[in-house]
């Protein structure tokens, strides 16, 4: 059977999770294999090369670059302070000397006698990587980072904004279909990951920012609200780098859409527990989806990562509709006809027949459903 449908997003109360935590450049790993780490622990650090500042010394001296060597006072590799003399003209009888000073502190990367250009480099910038999840170090990639494993309850979101954060889960919505009132967010939400229902409106997000909420998990978000929040329209889905003071993980999609019952119940079950979340979303080229990770107590012997497999679409498989009409509804496959079928838009597609939770029998393009893992 060809797989002409979307693999579903994972929602599970128990998964062995493996996370690579890698530095952007080679550096130093701070932990060793077998170490137990907490989400906020540093696991690796490095120094990023400082910014390069090109500086055309020949122009400043007003000489042709091939004569620059007669005036230059520095060499490649020299450490500089701001104001260090780079070159000096001889002047006339010791007078009218002109001195060229370094505009930055750092070091001399290179000197080109061909173009007269110096490349000065600013001091290195320290960068560190946190564990992000509570777990155990199962592998150290020398000079690059680590692999952490744990046992977690785990929810993949569909879209998110904002980077990595963590906090205890607090369920604000009384049901997965609630559109919560901003008043429900108060001081008790500070530092928490709050769970809304079908939508987090702009007012809710603003209130959460005010109350220093760490993260919001919501079924839906309105695109106009998102634009107003960020001040720009998201063009391509590469997100997670927004700096809005909190992280938002959307589990279903855009608009007001009930959070999947299973997701809501899972979050409710783990209320009060710590969750690590991030909003990184990249839909093309090395897909990334936002994640909600709730670490569970585990014995190291239990850590055995399962091979990923693509779930199959069969009669009886639980599915979720991921496009209008019936967007967001859950159902069960009742038939999988082979032949192409014409749907309302007159598109000829491979379809499936399904019975939705409300008893409605529908025909759906296979491309418009995702499989729900049992």
């Amino acid at each position, binding site marked *: 059977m060809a797989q002409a449908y979307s*693999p579903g997003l994972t929602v599970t109360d128990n998964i062995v999770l493996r996370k690579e935590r890698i530095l952007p450049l080679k550096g130093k790993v701070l932990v060793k294999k077998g170490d137990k780490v907490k989400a906020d622990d540093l696991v690796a650090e490095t120094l990023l090369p400082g910014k390069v500042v090109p500086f055309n010394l020949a122009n400043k001296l007003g000489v042709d670059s091939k004569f620059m060597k007669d005036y230059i006072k520095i060499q490649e590799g020299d450490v500089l302070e701001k104001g260090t003399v780079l070159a000096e003209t001889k002047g006339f009888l010791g007078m009218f000397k002109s001195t060229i000073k370094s505009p930055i502190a750092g070091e001399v990367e290179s000197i080109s006698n061909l173009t007269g250009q110096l*490349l000065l480099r600013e001091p290195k910038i320290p960068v560190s990587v946190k564990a992000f999840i509570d777990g155990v170090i199962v592998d150290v990639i020398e000079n690059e980072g680590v692999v952490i494993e744990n046992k977690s309850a785990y929810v993949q979101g569909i879209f998110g904004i904002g980077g990595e954060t963590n906090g205890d889960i607090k369920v604000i919505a009384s049901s997965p279909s609630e559109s919560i009132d901003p008043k429900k967010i108060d001081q008790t939400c500070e530092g928490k990951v709050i769970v809304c229902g079908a939508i987090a409106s702009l007012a809710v997000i603003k209130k959460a920012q005010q109350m220093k909420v760490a993260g919001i998990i919501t079924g839906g978000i*309105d695109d106009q609200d998102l634009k107003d929040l960020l001040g720009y*329209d998201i*063009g391509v*889905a590469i997100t997670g780098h927004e700096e809005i003071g909190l992280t938002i993980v959307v589990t279903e999609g855009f608009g007001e859409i009930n959070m999947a019952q299973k997701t809501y119940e899972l979050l409710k079950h783990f209320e009060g527990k710590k969750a690590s979340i991030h909003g990184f979303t990249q839909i093309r080229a090395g897909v990334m989806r936002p994640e909600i990770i709730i670490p569970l107590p585990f014995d190291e012997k239990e850590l055995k990562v399962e091979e990923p497999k693509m779930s199959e679409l069969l009669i009886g498989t639980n599915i979720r509709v*991921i496009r209008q009409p019936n967007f967001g509804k859950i159902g069960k496959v009742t038939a999988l006809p082979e032949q192409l079928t014409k749907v309302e838009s007159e598109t000829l597609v491979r379809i499936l027949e399904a019975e939705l939770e409300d008893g409605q029998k529908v025909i759906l393009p296979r491309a418009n459903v995702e499989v729900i893992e049992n």
Partner: protein
Amino acid sequence: MGNTQILKRIIATDCGSTTTKSILIEYMGGEYRQTVRGEAPTTVEKPLNDVTKGVINAVTELEELARIKYQDDSIKFTKDGEIWLSGKEGEGVDAYVSTSSAGGGLQMMVTGVVAKMTGESAERAALGAGAIVMDLIASNDKRPNHEKIERIRHLRPDMILMAGGVDGGTTKHVAEMAELVGAADPKPRLGSSYKLPVIYAGNDKARDIIKDTLADKTDLIITENLRPTLERENLGPARDKIHDLFMEHVMAQAPGYNKLMSWTKGPIDGKLENIPIMPTPAAVGNIMQTIAKVNNIEVLGVDIGGATTDVFSVFTEDKVFNRTVSANLGMSYSISNVLATAGIENILRWVPFDIDRAGLRNMIKNKMIRPTTIPQQLEELVLEQAIAKEALRYAFIQHKEFAVSLKGGQRQREISEAFSQSTSGDTIVNMMTLNLLVGSGGVLSHAPRRHQSVMMMIDAFLPEGITRLAVDSIFMMPQLGVLAEISEQAATEVFEKDCLIYLGSCVAPVGKMKPGKLSLSARIELPNGEVFEEDIPFGEMRLLPCGVGETAKATLKPARGLDIGAGNGTEIVTELHGGVVGIVLDTRGRQPFVMPVEAAERVPLLKKWMKVLNAYPAEILS
């Protein structure tokens, strides 16, 4: 590469960023035909992280459909989880070829000295090789040097192409650019275990300087100057190097590609040889140029994908080929960027009913985050096609700006050119002289009604004079482009018989007048024996029946002030080619084409045109 050996069964796949498409080509009755097609989601992503899984799924679908078609359960294309090249007749397949644009395709950065001269030539070379150009950095591009360095460092391209200077010219600026690249010490996008490939195709006198600056830090490859003189481009050697590096470095890093690269094989001179995977757009470019040369015509092609829209053109007597990639205009991953670029008003002007704007915004974003879904409802289809028109329109604007004559050169001008005031740097895209417009990509090739493809192509590209329209039926141009590497015969035969579906012709007078005034007097002898004769007012559309392979003798006289190719008000007597849709007469005006701003005025017009074109079921247009 020639190959006279008959290949009974060939499988070709194209691994796109969303979907992996497979086709089966069979030699039957003395000719090559494309017989079955399949597709499956591309699997370069987690959890599968292996492109070959999607390939096997797409080929398995092919296998299932072939079994149904021939009612033969013994048909088998895969064995032990691989494509089966048995080498024996009647078992497995004889050849397997593939193109790829998955994993974001080939992403490059190019550098030049003068942005509009060597910079543009470098960009043309990279685009022609099938790359997406992330940025063009030139000595004169006004950004301060430190910003250029930061940009180079942050981009993380798959490779860099450096041009600059004519042969024997000054070396200073090229040297400076090399210093900037060296200072940025750029890292490749995929994997950190290898050095970033840098191709130098600039002033030959600067080669040693470039080696001194970059040989240690990068994987430096030196090739011929792509702009040896201001008057001449020599893009071939640089393009070839890009293709070599694409295979050796980029593809080898993407998940599963090493395996896939070992699968793509076909017989060459009787021996089973490896056939390199080609970047999808490079393969499409090959085929487009072949059509233009073989038929001596000007061609414009568009491929609107999920993430990007590519426009290809072959214009002028010299058959100058240009390709542009609008990296962020597409129908799924990038659909939201179409909204951001065009604005909601420009999209809604093509929609013949009221729609809640917030709902439209959310629908577009939902398509972005679930890119493989398809419109089930008619309204959603109309909306997607409205968005497609704007994506195509913007991609075409970008193409026209890029496809220009060489800038900076001294060239002798003929008297006719002097009168037409063409100068170096003008666009060479001329919609009036264009012969064939080819559309491809899901939204055009898979539109439920071919009439919708005609409508989208006319509204987005606004062809002028007389233009034939076609779609690539199932977007197999990429597969045919790479297939030509082992069998030109198979590629060209399938192209002619199964690839292009001729939709018909569009006749559109250029110019503007008041609605209702006479714009075109047409007398058309249709193949069914009827004669269509009408003085068509301005602002109208007509659709006349004329089938595939049929022609209609037409006498077309535009009103004064309008032109259909022979000059102001001048009559043309010609033969119009038919197609699955027919002949469209479009008197809505060109240069400019204007639509009423007010919905109350615009919507009835849209409905009228859509009805004439039979674009949608009547209920949505009533």
